[in-house]
């Protein structure tokens, strides 16, 4: 095989046993890699009804066929499992160097099964695989764990691990790799913790080949040429995603005080140019993931004071969730919160949006002070930092925060104040600010998420549509017309990006989708038959995830948004007066998807996609 290395590492933690098997070639062709290959194996191997923390749930770390190549930012791996936060499919991908190293060790994916009797970590050095005790690592943060494993396994080992949050089954715990990169969403780290697996460390010295070497080289050079999108390479290349804060605020959708408004008076205090002052080695010094021409990462340091710390970030999503969503305008508090999340292994989005929800419950008098043990008003950076530390250890009220926003709001009788879709906390674009991405939030298989369909980038950042839909230019963000079609196509296209092994930041920076299709074809030797066939493969992946969710017990009732988004008009700013008009879009979306009015894929649609399974 080319692109893929053709092997799967299967680890049964209950039986302390490892085995290597061939990658099923037809599964690779039909579901590609990463997110797609992950759902294929998960769907085939587990009952979607299982308890996410039971030993029957499996955790898959899956690379894509372009992972480890130089196809621009080809370093991604995806953690696929059943989410403890949402009960739906979880697929969280991450950059850094870990994914590529796994491929060089000779594996397209690792399937982690069962549960170890005591804490362990996995040490992979090419074909030598050990399950080692991690008793001495339990309780250590992600940086310490990475350092200790490098010291005892191999100094060049790449490490993906959980922090204390994953160990304590915090429902939004993530998997951290290479210190600062995260498979962030849906609580994949908690699943890892439930298996008593502290880390996976890997070192590989094998190569990855491609189907057409000369053609592939040309395709990469063409991609480099196309990549110079003004938004991605200039704006993000300057200060990283932190530069988006002020822009989002200007267009009126920077979520503020638990999404009560889209305008934050403190936006300029936590914007890109402010964060840049804390950037190590100069304001625009970038940190790139494996093979990435963009380098959106930053390494920062708060040198002194109560929020002293250092590490990667903060990026836009963090500045929103732990900044404007909590009403916090002290950049050092936000940065400290970021460092804590990275070290403890927690998703900054879910963590911030959950605390923002708690703050609103508190201010409205639904959450008594005696439960929290302190005052919890919007803007209180100290309280936020304190709660994060306690959430990771499930101490005091942190134990309630650790359950995520939906369970928190439900517990205090106001689930409508949870800013979630399918119980996954919203990222930092208020859905009232654009109808297309509102529909995307409502219909994403993993819940409220911005990077499974970046319609928002088209609706208000002026990023190109990559030619995947004919609209003759930009989209009016407040209209619902045509949005179901755009949303569907983007979702299917993103299934392909997330399965390829390339970072989606690279692809959305390109005006022409053919550059990406060409890379995939030259890399794998597959022919997709143009955009239609390419999207068809993406649609297959999307529908299999949908089937997983439906079997897990989700229904069309879960394809919705909180009351605030549907009924409470945006109070101010350019989006003033708007609500999400989901009912104007959802029926058409189902129809375009070939689903019944109840949101169930029809037999005909499944047959057309070559999915041979029934509900």
């Amino acid at each position, binding site marked *: 095989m080319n692109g893929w290395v053709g092997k799967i590492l299967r680890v049964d933690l209950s039986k302390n046993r490892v085995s290597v098997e061939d990658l099923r070639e037809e599964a690779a062709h039909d579901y590609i890699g990463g997110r797609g290959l992950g759902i294929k194996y998960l769907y085939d191997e587990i009952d979607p009804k299982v308890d996410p923390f039971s030993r029957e749930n499996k955790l898959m770390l899956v690379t894509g066929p372009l992972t*480890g*190549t*130089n196809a621009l930012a080809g370093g991604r791996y995806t953690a696929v499992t059943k989410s403890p936060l949402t009960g739906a499919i979880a697929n969280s991908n991450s950059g850094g*160097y870990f994914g590529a190293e796994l491929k*060089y060790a000779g594996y397209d994916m690792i399937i982690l099964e069962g549960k170890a009797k005591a804490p362990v970590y996995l040490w992979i050095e090419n074909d030598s695989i050990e399950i080692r005790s991690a008793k001495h690592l339990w309780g250590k943060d992600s940086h310490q764990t990475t350092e200790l494993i490098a010291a005892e396994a191999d100094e060049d080992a790449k490490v993906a691990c959980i922090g204390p949050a994953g160990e304590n089954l915090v429902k939004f715990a993530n998997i951290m790799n*290479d*210190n*600062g990169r995260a498979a962030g969403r849906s609580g994949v780290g908690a699943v890892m913790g439930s298996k008593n697996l502290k880390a996976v460390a890997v070192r*590989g*010295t*094998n*190569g*990855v*080949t*491609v189907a057409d*070497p000369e053609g592939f*080289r040309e395709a*990469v*050079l063409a991609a*480099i040429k196309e*990549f110079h999108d003004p938004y991605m390479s200039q704006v993000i290349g300057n200060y990283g995603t932190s530069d988006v804060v002020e822009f989002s605020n200007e267009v009126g959708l920077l979520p503020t005080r638990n999404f009560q408004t889209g305008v934050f008076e403190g936006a300029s205090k936590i914007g890109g140019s402010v964060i840049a002052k804390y*950037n*190590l*080695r*100069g304001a625009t*010094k*970038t*940190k*790139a*993931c*494996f*093979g*990435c*021409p963009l*380098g959106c990462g*930053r*390494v920062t340091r708060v040198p002194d004071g109560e929020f002293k710390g*250092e590490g*990667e970030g903060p990026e836009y999503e963090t500045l929103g969730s732990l900044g404007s969503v909590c009403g916090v305008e002290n950049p050092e508090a936000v940065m400290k919160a970021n460092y804590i999340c990275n070290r403890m292994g927690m998703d900054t989005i879910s963590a911030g949006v959950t605390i923002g929800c708690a703050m609103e419950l508190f201010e409205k008098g639904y959450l008594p002070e005696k439960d929290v043990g302190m005052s919890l008003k919007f803007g209180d950076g100290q309280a936020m930092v304190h709660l994060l530390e306690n959430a990771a250890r499930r101490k005091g009220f942190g134990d309630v925060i650790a359950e995520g926003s939906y369970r928190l709001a439900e517990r205090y009788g106001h689930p409508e104040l949870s800013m979630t879709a399918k119980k996954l906390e919203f990222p930092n674009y208020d859905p009232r600010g654009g109808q297309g991405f509102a529909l995307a939030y409502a219909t994403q298989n993993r819940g409220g998420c911005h990077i499974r369909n970046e319609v928002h980038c088209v609706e208000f950042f002026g990023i190109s549509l990559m030619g995947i839909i004919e609209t003759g230019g930009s989209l009016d963000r407040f209209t619902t017309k045509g949005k179901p079609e755009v949303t569907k196509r983007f979702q299917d296209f993103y299934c392909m990006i997330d399965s390829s092994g390339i970072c989606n930041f690279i692809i959305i920076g390109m005006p022409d989708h053919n550059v990406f299709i060409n890379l995939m074809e030259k890399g794998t030797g597959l022919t997709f038959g143009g955009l239609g066939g390419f999207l068809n493969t993406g649609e297959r992946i999307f529908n299999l995830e949908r089937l997983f969710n439906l079997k897990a017990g989700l229904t069309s009732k879960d394809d919705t948004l909180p009351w605030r988004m549907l009924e409470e008009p945006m109070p101010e700013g350019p989006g003033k007066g708007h609500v999400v008009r989901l009912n104007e879009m959802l029926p058409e979306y189902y129809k375009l998807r070939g689903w019944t009015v109840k949101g169930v894929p029809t037999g005909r649609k499944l047959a057309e996609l070559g999915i041979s399974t029934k509900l």
Partner: protein
Amino acid sequence: MAKALLVNLDKCTGCRSCELACSFKHHGEFNPSKSNIQVSIFTENAFYVPMVCTQCDKPFCGEVCPTGAIYAAETNGAYVVLVDKEKCVGCKMCTLACPFGAITYQSNGCVQKCNLCEGNPECVTFCIPGALEFKDWELRTARKSRTYAEKIYHQKEAD
């Protein structure tokens, strides 16, 4: 004047594209462990250092080579140190002598090092941040002094 492979540390982002370009060019596969250029990454300090053969005027690797397999040559206007594969016996003494780890043994019975891709270095083609250049080195003589001078200037301005 002579061309050389120049490294600008300020521009390196730690993406390791150079390692991929090198191994793909010389081995037909993406495999950093076979690359002649290696990036050391110190994330905590945001410091990334590509290490590659500096093409020494008096190469240590050549001095210790018992078969005289290592020799100096010129390629596309650049001075380069090359390995004669016919003469190399795979004794690996050169890998011990090079203080930079820039010459390595590759389990094919021969050592390998950067040959500047016969005057068109592939790593430079794929270094998008522009940290690697293949240029007359005299064009960059003033760079480091200027970088430091700028620091003094900004310091003075701040005062």
